[in-house]
Structure formats: structure tokens, C-alpha cells
């Protein structure tokens, strides 16, 4: 099993998809943090509490979750696209074993993204507040925000892989991920908050303290995230074991 996981790990990092997605995510996070600070200092002569600013700058790195999800999704769907999934199944000792190895490898991939984002997020208050009158103030809330950001990045990678296994087609899978992330969760939260807050994206927002008043409490959000991952795993496993391969 160790060799199989190692092989799946290598497949994820093969090609250029991962660094393209990672670079895009870093750019988005930097722009979001810079935009937030600009707005913060422009809107009021006396900016908010520096503790709040520090936590918000850290929170901005949650967008790396999308990159981790895309990288995991591309790694899975690429195999369906080029037919390598059949060889993976043939050489891995069974579909169930391969699925387990893939999920372990994408969890590791998510952890790498989470660690990278964690380092950058932790450094970002000092970088963005450099040269300003305010000094970053790191609090327990900031620590929990950082841990929440890192957790949702790992969950995002697993969710991306599960969607890839379910949909199989790369473009369709990425579109589904982007639409569900940008439109469905947020839209449902506005129209039907009781349902919207149960979507995986809004449960993630709860975990990294997204700040919306309709969101779930963190413990309940963790339960909802676990339920989504469990449901996704069961659905992906069922389809992967039963459906013909390309």
C-alpha cells in the first residue's frame, strides 16, 4: 500500500497544474488582503482593532482551498481523460485499494497546501502592515482562524478528488466546483439561510470564521463537513467500484 500511495502522490505533482493553481491562489489571496487593507484604511480615519485586522488578513488565505481542490480534482480527472485510470486499477490490486490510496495521497496534497498557506497566512499580517502605524496583534482567535483555514484546505483537496471521481470529466468537474463554490453556497445562504449554511462551502466558511451571521457554529460546521466528505466518499466509492472504466 505504501508504494501505491507513493505512486499516487507522484501523479499529483506530475505536470504543471499544481504550481499554476498554487500561484493563482497566492495571487488571489495577496490581492484580497491588499484590497481589504486598502478598504479598511480608506473607509475610516481610525481603522478597526488591529487584532481584527490581523485575523482578517490570516483568514484571507482560505482561498487556497480552491487551489487544493482543483489540483486534487485535476489529478483524478486527468487519469480518466487519458485512460491511465484503467492501468492504475490493473496495477493497484483492486479498485477499492486504489481509491483508498488516492484519497490518502490527496489528503497529503491538501496538507502540503495547508502548510504552505499556513506559513504565508501567518506571515501576512507582518508583511501587509509593514510600514504602517499599526502592529499586528496575534490572538487566540487568530490562531483558531489560521487552523480553520488550514483544515478547510485539506478538506477542499479531498472534496475536489471526490467530485473528480464522481464526475470523471475534467472541465465538467472544475465547472461544478467553481459554480458550487461561488454561486450555490452563497446564493442559498442569502435565499434560504437554513439550507445554505448546510452546504459544504458555507460549512467551510464557518470553520475559518467567515463572519456571516447565518453560518453554523464551528462544532456543527465540522459535523456538516464530515457528513459531506462521508457522503462523497460513499458515492464515489460506489460508482468507482461499479462503473465501467474508460
Amino acid at each position, binding site marked *: 500500500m505504501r508504494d*501505491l500511495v507513493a*505512486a499516487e502522490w*507522484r501523479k499529483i505533482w506530475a505536470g504543471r497544474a499544481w504550481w499554476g493553481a498554487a500561484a493563482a491562489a497566492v495571487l488571489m489571496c495577496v490581492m484580497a488582503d491588499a484590497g481589504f487593507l486598502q478598504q479598511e484604511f480608506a473607509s475610516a480615519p481610525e481603522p478597526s482593532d488591529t487584532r481584527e485586522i490581523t485575523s482578517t488578513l490570516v483568514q484571507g488565505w482560505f482561498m487556497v482551498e480552491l487551489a487544493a481542490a482543483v489540483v486534487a480534482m485535476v489529478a483524478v480527472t486527468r487519469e480518466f481523460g487519458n485512460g491511465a485510470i484503467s492501468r492504475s486499477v490493473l496495477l493497484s490490486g483492486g479498485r477499492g485499494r486504489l481509491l483508498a490510496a488516492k484519497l490518502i495521497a490527496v489528503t497529503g496534497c491538501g496538507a502540503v497546501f495547508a502548510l504552505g498557506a499556513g506559513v504565508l497566512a501567518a506571515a501576512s499580517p507582518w508583511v501587509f502592515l509593514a510600514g504602517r502605524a499599526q502592529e499586528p496583534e496575534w490572538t487566540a482567535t487568530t490562531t483558531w482562524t489560521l487552523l480553520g483555514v488550514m483544515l478547510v484546505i485539506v478538506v477542499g483537496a479531498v472534496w475536489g478528488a471526490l467530485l473528480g471521481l464522481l464526475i470523471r470529466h475534467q472541465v465538467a468537474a472544475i465547472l461544478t466546483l467553481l459554480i458550487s463554490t461561488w454561486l450555490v453556497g452563497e446564493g442559498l445562504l442569502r435565499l434560504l439561510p437554513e439550507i445554505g449554511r448546510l452546504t459544504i462551502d458555507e460549512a467551510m466558511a464557518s470553520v475559518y470564521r467567515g463572519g456571516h451571521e447565518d453560518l453554523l457554529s464551528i462544532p456543527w460546521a465540522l459535523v456538516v463537513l464530515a457528513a459531506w466528505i462521508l457522503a462523497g466518499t460513499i458515492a464515489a466509492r460506489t460508482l468507482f467500484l461499479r462503473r465501467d*472504466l474508460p
Partner: protein
Amino acid sequence: MTDVVDIVGLTKRYGELTAVEDVSFTVRSGRVVGLLGRNGAGKTTTLRMLLGLARPTSGRATVFGHPYAQLTRAAHRVGVSIDGIGPTGAGSAQTDLRIWAKTLGLSRTRVDEVLEQVGLAADGHRKLRDYSQGMRQRHALATALLADPELLILDEPANGLDPDGIRWLRELLRSLADEGRTVLVSSHILAEVEQMADDIVILQKTLRYSGTVADLTQNGGVSLESRFFDLVGPAVKENAHA
């Protein structure tokens, strides 16, 4: 000689379309078996069902007495190159093979050995996308040979090979059979199959022939091509799905 492959009453339907119907044949140990049929005759579908990549509508297919998915160390005993199974997209041929070798728990030196065996030792560092069709075929064959398998299942391995490559492939497959391995190879190139195969299976959705080349050609009295067209009948336009 024992049966390495045993296919019994295999049928595959995609909705209204029947790709393979009630096909039964065996492959004996140490033989080179040519699987012949027109496009859409069900050759690839049959091989995919044999390997558990597609689920049969009915019937069963076993390798070394077991369904592939239940065969112990299946990946080490069966090497596969089938149309539609591509490389990982890892860049170079060597990187791709190293990933598969890792999956199998094999060392990197084995990658160098198979690259040498298929004549790609000098080109292993090159990107797969820069490979010619013939080089890709050799690469696919290298992947199939990685685990030094007892049974090789090859789907149209001569496609894209130049005349030298076709002769090289024939000699390679014969030498593998001489070592006691079994080769099940599908092909369109009847003359090639006639030269390399011991046994022939002819499919045209249903089984049309399964037996020795000698029996089929009456010990060379009739050409394989002539017998093939006698058995599969005239070409008709139909939906191909295989």
C-alpha cells in the same frame, strides 16, 4: 498445457447495442494467440471484460483460474497494453514508467531494463507528447513488460510501427512465448498474425473461430486472410462499439 485465459458465454450490451455476444474461448499456456476481428467486432471489449475494466452483461472471464480482480498478484502476472489506456501524463517516458514501477513496488533499474528491451533507452528522457505513434506503442509495451509478466495482453500493438518495428515486435513476442510466457494479441494485420501466432480467435461480435493457425489454414494450404473473410462474412455498415 493449462488454460491461462478462460472465457465462457461472455456478452456485453450497451443498451440496445450488442458489442459481444456469447463468446467462449480459452488461451493455453505458452502460446501466442491472435485475436482477430474487424473494427467494432468486440476485441477490445472482450479484453476489457477479461481484465475487469468493463462488467459483462453475462458470462464470465478468468485469468489463471480467477477473475482478474480476485487474482493474487495479478499486476505482476499479467501485463497489459490496450487501446485507450494511456500514460499518466507525467512528462517523460521514464517518469511515467517510474510511477508505474512504484505502483508495482519495482525498482528504477527495472524501468531502464524495459526501456532497453523495447528500444527506447536513448529516448526515455523525452516527453511522451513528442513521441511518434510507433514510439508510443513501444512505450505502452514497456509498461506492460514492467512486472516481467507470465501473460501479456496486447491490443493492436503493431499500430503505428514501421516495418522494422513490426518485425521487431514479432520477434519479441515469439521470444517471450519461447520463454514460456503466453501472449494474447489482437491485431488487424492478418499476415503478421499468421507469422507469429500459434492459435487464432476470430470475433465478429460472436465467436467465429477458435483453434490453431494450422487447422484454420489447413497447414498453410489456404491463407489466413482468405479464411478470415470466409468466417466473418462480408463487411456491412453498422454501429461500431468496441
